[in-house]
């Protein structure tokens, strides 16, 4: 048993299992080759972040940030639940990695990603990781009320510690990795994440991983970004997103990789009694 497992305390339902998984990942990371060094470091950092440190009585864990609340209404999370339940994941895979993207900013991509992660965490009771991979335009800090600086991009640039934020009291098994401060060249982070299979290290630690990807329409590294996830959902804002843009990114990503469209911000005005007649 490593130090991480020694100090692991039940943090939620299934926390013991998490600790075992973390230890297993640590053991596995010792065997990784040089090309997978970053992946190993990522797993270590995750394990390090998840490990609870002894604290003085009456004081909160100084190393584990917490989100005050998710900030999304229950009905919104329920609609997001409908979205992730429609995605056909491979039953043989323990960890489900779902990417959420859109054509452009302002379509509700991040809200839907948070909603899906929350629903998955609540439903499956498994540890669920929500990663922000929108390095150019981070927004998790706005949603969760945390500081912008310090996140995945800083860690990929050689920062000593991976910042991981734990979910609110109502959903304690959700973990959030913000992307950090806005970066000018986001493609290089994706290259590192994909080329070194960094996210593979998470598969043994978390049951669900939701990746908030950047909008796909105007970026050249879309294929790199999409390679991070097993399945993809595209968020479109009703009456705002152009169908032609959706068509473009579906073609670019590949229809077989897109599990579905989440139509966000619908505001149907046609009376409900009239809709079935149409």
């Amino acid at each position, binding site marked *: 048993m490593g130090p991480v497992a020694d100090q692991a305390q039940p943090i939620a339902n299934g926390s013991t299992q998490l600790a075992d998984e973390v230890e297993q990942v640590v053991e596995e990371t010792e065997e990784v080759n040089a090309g997978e060094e970053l992946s190993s470091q990522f797993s270590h950092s995750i394990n390090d972040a998840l490990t609870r440190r002894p604290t003085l009585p009456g004081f909160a864990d100084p190393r584990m940030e917490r989100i005050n609340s998710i900030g999304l209404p229950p009905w919104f999370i329920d609609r997001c639940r409908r979205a992730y339940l429609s995605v056909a994941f491979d039953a043989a895979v323990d960890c489900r990695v779902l990417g959420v993207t859109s054509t452009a900013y302002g379509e509700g991509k991040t809200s839907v990603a948070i909603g899906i992660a929350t629903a998955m965490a609540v439903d499956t009771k498994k540890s669920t990781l929500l990663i922000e991979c929108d390095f150019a335009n981070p927004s998790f800090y706005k949603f969760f009320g945390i500081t912008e600086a310090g996140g995945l991009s800083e860690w990929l640039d050689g920062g000593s510690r991976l910042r991981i934020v734990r979910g609110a009291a109502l959903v304690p098994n959700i973990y959030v990795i913000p992307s950090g401060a806005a970066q000018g060249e986001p493609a290089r982070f994706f290259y590192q994440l994909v080329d070194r299979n960094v996210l593979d290290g998470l598969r043994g630690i978390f049951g669900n991983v939701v990746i908030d990807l950047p909008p796909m329409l105007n970026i050249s590294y879309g294929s790199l970004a999409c390679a991070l996830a097993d399945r993809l959902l595209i968020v479109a*804002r009703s009456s705002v997103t152009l169908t032609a843009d959706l068509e473009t990114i579906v073609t670019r990503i590949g229809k077989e990789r897109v599990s*579905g*469209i*989440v139509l966000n911000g619908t505001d149907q005005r046609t009376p409900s009694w009239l809709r079935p007649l149409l």
Partner: protein
Amino acid sequence: MAKYLEILFRQRLRFAVLLLLPVVLGVSAAVVLAGYRATATLRIADPSAIGPSFEPVGWSPNQTPAQNLADNVSQVVKTPAFSQSLSTRLTGSGAVSSGPELQQTLKSTSTGLKAVASGSHFVTLTYTCPHAAVCLAVVSDTIDIFKEEMAAIQQDQATAATTFWSGQLKDAQANLAAAQVELQNYASAHPGTTADAGLSDPQMALLVSNVQLWRGKVTEAQNSLSQAQYLGNASTRFLQIGTAVVDPPHMAGSRFVGDYSSLLPAALVLLVGLAAVAAYIFLLGWADRTAGDPKLLERRLGVPVVATIPKLVGSGGA
């Protein structure tokens, strides 16, 4: 269809105004373009009531009294005297206030004022114009003017006939007197010759024949003159007492839209307006290339829409 209905309900306030506009325009057209129709019915008595062989001057024996009267009215309203009288009356009563309106009214009487036989003894007089008061005044004045004009016409015709037959009688009487003088002179020159000796004296027979001829002509002229005087007086009297207004001049149709003739253009305005609104909806739908209808999206992209999420109030989206 769903897309267009959604557009309609989404912008329902705008479309309510747009739908109201053609309705308002249609109603306005119905009121502004309304044509008013005044009507009156005249009854004409049967000429046989005056006498079995009586036939008013100018009447056709092959037509009914109503048809004859309608013809008379139609002829009278085309005369300059009628226009003059109508102009004087309309101006005097104040029904027409401006010169151009008066001119337009007088001009339209030749086509807008109609007399139609609506039975063997009934004639319906109608006049259509843009103003109800003017219509009513024109029909009312037309009846009065018609009676006056017909009396004058009948009087003129009777005078002409009387003058003619008076001249004929005078000529016949002069010729008779001349023939009698000639016969007396011949009898004086040939004593013993009598009127009965016509066969033995051809000259005597010719003179006697002349006297008889002119005597007959005088009698004929006297009869015709009497007949003309009788017909002239009787016709004038007949048209005066035999023509009665059974249905006084009144407005037909609605107070606001008149004789309903403006409903067709109003309906056209309404239809064009509604078509324009429908075209606007179609244009908006055609120009809207955004994702909105899940079914359309699935059909176009070949990817399922796995969830629809209503608008999150206060959400800026990210």
